[in-house]
């Protein structure tokens, strides 16, 4: 299955995954400790829903981090 995180294509051997598994293919355990929030196909997914949210073929995940802003 292929999906995208922040525009980067990620291919995994299984046909399905949840958000937690998907993020494990993008973040190191150390990076996982950073503050971030997730949207799947443009919809916000709260941390408590990672376990129960499926990622499917072609899905797009946005992983956003705090930055400076005006």
């Amino acid at each position, binding site marked *: 299955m292929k999906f995208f995180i922040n525009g980067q294509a990620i291919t995994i051997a299984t046909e399905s995954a949840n958000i937690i598994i998907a993020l494990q293919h993008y973040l190191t355990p150390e990076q996982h400790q*950073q503050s971030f929030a997730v949207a799947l196909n443009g919809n916000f997914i709260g941390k408590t829903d990672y376990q129960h949210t499926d990622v499917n073929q072609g899905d797009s995940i946005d992983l956003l981090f705090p*930055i400076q802003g005006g």
Partner: protein
Amino acid sequence: MKLSQELIIYGQPVQSRLLIGSALYPSPEIMKQAILASESKIVTLSLKRQNPAEQSGAKIWQYIQDIVKESQGFLLPNTAGCKTAKEAVTLAKMSREIFQTDWIKLEVIGDDYNLQPDPIELLTATEQLLNDGFKVLPYCTDDLVICQRLYDLGCQVIMPWASPIGTGKGLMNPYNLETIRLRLPNATLILDAGIGKPSDACLAMEMGYDGVLLNSAVALADNPVLMAKAFAQAVTAGEQGYIAGMMQQRQTAHPSTPTLETPFWHQQG
């Protein structure tokens, strides 16, 4: 209109009327010094994609957390870069989870050239976010009707622009801004964007605005820390000038010095 004793954001008293952004500074350390020098209690920030392997974003976030802790202030996340209500609502929800605040500076841009807010999408996003429990601080143009609609939806705070973001052109339409103040006496009005110099901030406060939000004017100054102090003083000066009550303009000159018993007075006749 009577200015409240302190800035009130959805019932939360805030000890400074100057809100400040965290972007564009020459370095994180100068950012910290400038924000602390501004005495602002509200710092804006954002969310973006970034390579998690780069530690710069995490460091900036740590700096901002330190600033807010030291100043006993508040975070105000924005939805910069969003062009639709759906994008803005999603980003607001992501911000709420990370920053643990239901305050959101709502930006929905309708034009890439001057970064002018899209009023239709802005109203749509505002309504959805208010219904979801957010305390929305919408960034809008100086259009009275849009401000009125935002207020009618339930926005207690409205943030019309002075001029397009980052231009430093100051108050393009003072008449519009004064009209908004006059017609929405109970709204908390914060002038946002386009401020270039301390006198711009002072002028807004002299109009009776409740606060001023800026970033570039401080961050891009030759000396951001000194400019931050200047803005703090300008906001206070404008606020006190407004409270003190300014004299009415007059069409003709009136001598300041009493003329009675003036020596060498030229008697008529």
